[in-house]
């Protein structure tokens, strides 16, 4: 099943594919330069409480504030077998 969710809702080790970025041009281009483009695979590394999340995208670990992570919409990947690294 492929659903569209906010990045901040992925559980640790869950993977997704970036679908849309919501926000002003400055914000979107900053994220895009770091690897968050349409079609990019992402893996959630740490997601706890209300603090910022850590995501793995294009071989890099990026910490994102919760509000920022909510602005990235991803499609959950079906093959979530818990494998680490991308």
């Amino acid at each position, binding site marked *: 099943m492929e659903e569209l969710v906010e990045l901040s809702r992925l559980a640790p080790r869950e993977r997704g594919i970036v679908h849309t970025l919501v926000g002003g041009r400055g914000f979107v*281009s900053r994220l895009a330069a*770091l690897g968050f*483009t349409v079609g990019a695979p992402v893996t959630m590394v740490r997601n706890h409480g*209300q603090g*910022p999340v*850590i995501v793995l995208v294009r071989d890099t*670990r990026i910490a994102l504030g919760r509000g*920022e992570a909510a602005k990235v919409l991803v499609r959950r990947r079906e093959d979530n077998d818990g494998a680490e690294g991308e």
Partner: protein
Amino acid sequence: MARRANSPLASCDCCTPASADNPLPTGTITVALAGQPNVGKTTVFNLLTGLSQHVGNWPGKTVEQKTGFYACDGWTMRIVDLPGTYSLTANSVEEQVARDFIIRERPDVVVVIVDAATLERNLYLLAELLHLPARVILGLNMVDVAEQQGLHIEPHVLQAALGIPVVPMVASRNQGICELVRTIVGLVRGEIPYAPRRPEIREDHQQVLASLEEIVGPYVPSPYPADWVSLKLLEGDSEITRLVQERMPQEAWEQIQSILHRHEDAVLAVAGGRYDWIGRMVRAAVARPRAGHITLTERVDRIATHPFWGLVLLGAVLAVAFWLTYAVALPIQRWLGSVVVQGIAEQVGRWLAPAPGWLSGLIIEGIIGGVGSMLTFAPILTLFFATMGFLEDVGYMARAAYVMDRFMHLLGLHGKSFLPLFLGFGCNVPAVMGTRIIEERRARLLTILLAPLVPCPARMAVVAVLAPAFFGTRAPWVSGGLVFLSLFALALSGALLNWILFRGERAAFIMELPLYHIPNLRTIGLLVWQRLLAFLRKAGTVILAVSIVVWALSHFPGGTIEESLLGRLGRWLSPVGAWMGFDWRMIVALLTSFIAKENAVATLAVLYGAGRESLPALLRASVSPASGLAFLVATMLFIPCVATFTVMRQETGSWKWTLIGTGFLLLLSLAAAALVFQLARLLGGA
């Protein structure tokens, strides 16, 4: 071959000798070093330039500029270290500075340093650069780390795919630098083939780009390249948009605007096109590890970024940093103060015996006393910066920022402000300068305004002398309480200022967590040296000047401090001081702490007619504990010392904000002191 004596490459044969049919470039070549943060660009720059490097600011900006030279056999390479940026948009001053340099100054070669272990993302900057008119060399750094991760990269394949020279390097081990230099020279001489493949925008937007280029073409100012300008317009680049709008007739601009309105999401297509291109380039050249490969970084991060254990680890790391600094540096500081500075003062005093009183006073108390006591802090600073620099280089500070973000949130800041504020425990000057790592202006400004509230060793020195005078054996409790009071005031002020000045809006928190790597001692050493030099320069110039002025104010016209201008000012202010339990002497002492916090003690000693040793006894006799406590509170929260004040003005770029910050601290410290005094009197009885 003649080589610069201080170049670390003096022993390696990087230069190819000139010959009749192969003349070397004469004069100077300009090489720009570009790269994303955390790729080892600084290491490469340091290796190439050694101590010839000069650190300053880009003209008119608060962005650091480093230039240096590498010389060999009659020609010179001028190397400019561009700020580390992820891309070349107009979103930050650093990016604008970097791209302006490449477009306007036209360096002969641009070397892009990339981290082989995160090649895909790093190549994004290359993708941007290839649209600009510059010859680019790819420095493929950290090949060793990539191999450790199981990533195997073929530089020749990459070179063939990209069409530009690729030089594999392990800068931390001084490998590949020679090859880089030879490649730069080869490229400038035209010996190396150069046929770059440029990324294209995604197919669904190609037509749009073509139409934009057609309209914009005739109006593009040189030296900007026309196709790059159209691409930036499509991306919604604020600087280029403004530039083009100013130069176009109204009808043409309206045409452009209608196209842009219809394609507001084009920035994703542009970025996506770049990554598609990167994917193709990298596919053949990179062999990936099998899935399930766990790296050292991941293992350490399990603890370092853990919501609970991460904090514990941070606490332990910081505790060690403090312990190391104070255990080693404090004895050195005492020795410096009592033996070296005192010795110099006495010696000079003997030489100046025949001179008029005011001259020897000026030189001994004003200059040597003022500047000398500042310089005794150098050991503490060196050690503190070394530990911080070590943690930064290893890659840990990003984790510290991540873990502290929750708490920084309460101050209206985010995790990135943690490092500069923490530097304040060593000295507020580098703390304010360290705020440059914060990209967003509001967050940077707020951090600068809050930095003076971090208790620095100078303030603690005042507490260390005065607290025992008033509180005897309970002094350590009082000291600890004052530190917590400062930090509490910091948190409160942060929340308050954020709400008043910025309506509680918070900047976006986006931060890369780089891989941990073995620290490079040379990089750390140079960083510590530069921070120390910044502090010493302030001591030598601003503090010296103000020391003289304040000494003059405290000796003229009367010849004794009681009759001087400063003394009269203190007496005039004493009705206000009464609310806090301060007599005119304490007011004057507080005023002199503006030069350097520890001056408060020296001033009190002079005003109470004591030598340092008998000061505590005299104070106990004439000042109540309530007043003493209020005085200590005021010292902890008072306006920044002149060095910090100067740096605040420099980093904010505005008198308005510096004065707002100072005014706020003045009110805060006096209000807190008054409150504490009245409460202490009520509870303890005068």
